[in-house]
């Protein structure tokens, strides 16, 4: 992505709101980024179209999974030195509480940032950070930094 390449070339950080703007599915879900220094919190702004269970009502489990995956991708895009977005290899989502029809927040922690693969843990919550509604862990394939060669040790 141009904006990732630009950030790397200029040695600056990635403009995360511009990144979100460039990802159609993130815009569709209504995800925004709340950045305080290096701390990144994603916000899933509640809309009726995110409902999966109209009886309760509750957010669609897939939407919560999507938020967790997107949060991991944004965190890795911010940390990484590649030009392309990281690709998910696998993600496991534990659903802890039903997602109420209000805003949801998520934060990712990169457990291990390897050369090719990163292991990430993500947690989503609503009003109370101590009461997460879902947690996920997953592996992501990282785009190699452009100057690296295939057989470089590492």
């Amino acid at each position, binding site marked *: 992505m141009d904006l990732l390449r630009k950030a790397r070339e200029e040695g600056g950080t990635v403009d995360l709101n511009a990144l979100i703007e460039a990802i*159609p599915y993130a815009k569709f879900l209504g995800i925004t980024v709340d950045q305080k220094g290096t701390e990144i919190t994603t916000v899933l702004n509640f809309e009726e*179209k995110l409902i*999966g269970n109209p009886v309760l009502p509750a957010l669609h489990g897939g939407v919560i*999974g999507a938020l967790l995956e997107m949060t991991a991708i944004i965190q890795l895009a911010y940390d990484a030195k590649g030009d392309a977005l990281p690709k998910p290899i*696998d993600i496991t989502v534990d*659903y802890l509480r039903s997602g109420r029809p209000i805003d949801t927040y998520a934060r990712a922690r990169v457990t291990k940032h390897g050369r090719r693969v990163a292991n990430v843990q993500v947690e989503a919550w609503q009003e109370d950070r101590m009461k997460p509604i879902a947690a996920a862990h997953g592996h992501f394939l990282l785009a190699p930094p452009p100057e690296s060669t295939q057989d470089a040790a590492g």
Partner: protein
Amino acid sequence: MDEDKLTKMVEESGNALIQHVPHARAIGLKIVTAKKSHAWLEVPYAPHLVGNPDTGVIHGGVITTLLDNASGVAVQLALPERSAIATLDLRIDYMRPAEPGKTIKAHAHCYKVTQNVAFVRGTAYHDENEDEPIATSVGTFMLAANRATPVAMAAQMAKALEAKDNKKGDA
């Protein structure tokens, strides 16, 4: 209900199951067909579902939603009667990127139901190529999720109490 009747019912009116789900409508999710413990769903390609603007590939979250929903429907079709269910966990393995422009299909199979939990496997693929998956999933669902005491358990408790009362009567 016999299996052919169930399949026919789902093909004719199965989308009634998900039509009232706002998010299913928002992404164009459809139930294609079904039989006992099995569900086939699909989501058509759409620009607003793209996760990587460089490649036009649909975001993994859409595949999570598709497999989660397909798994939930498969669980419903494995149960003797409609029950409130909740996803406990769902693991998705991404094997290859979905091809831009193509509908993504999913097949979920609920292969085991216990008193409280249902176990489901799923596959996402293009066309009829289920053996060349885009992604596979495995998930567990809690049954009778939104009640304080599941019905089956309540029945069991009533039975236990009854047995206890009878014993008292004998003494």
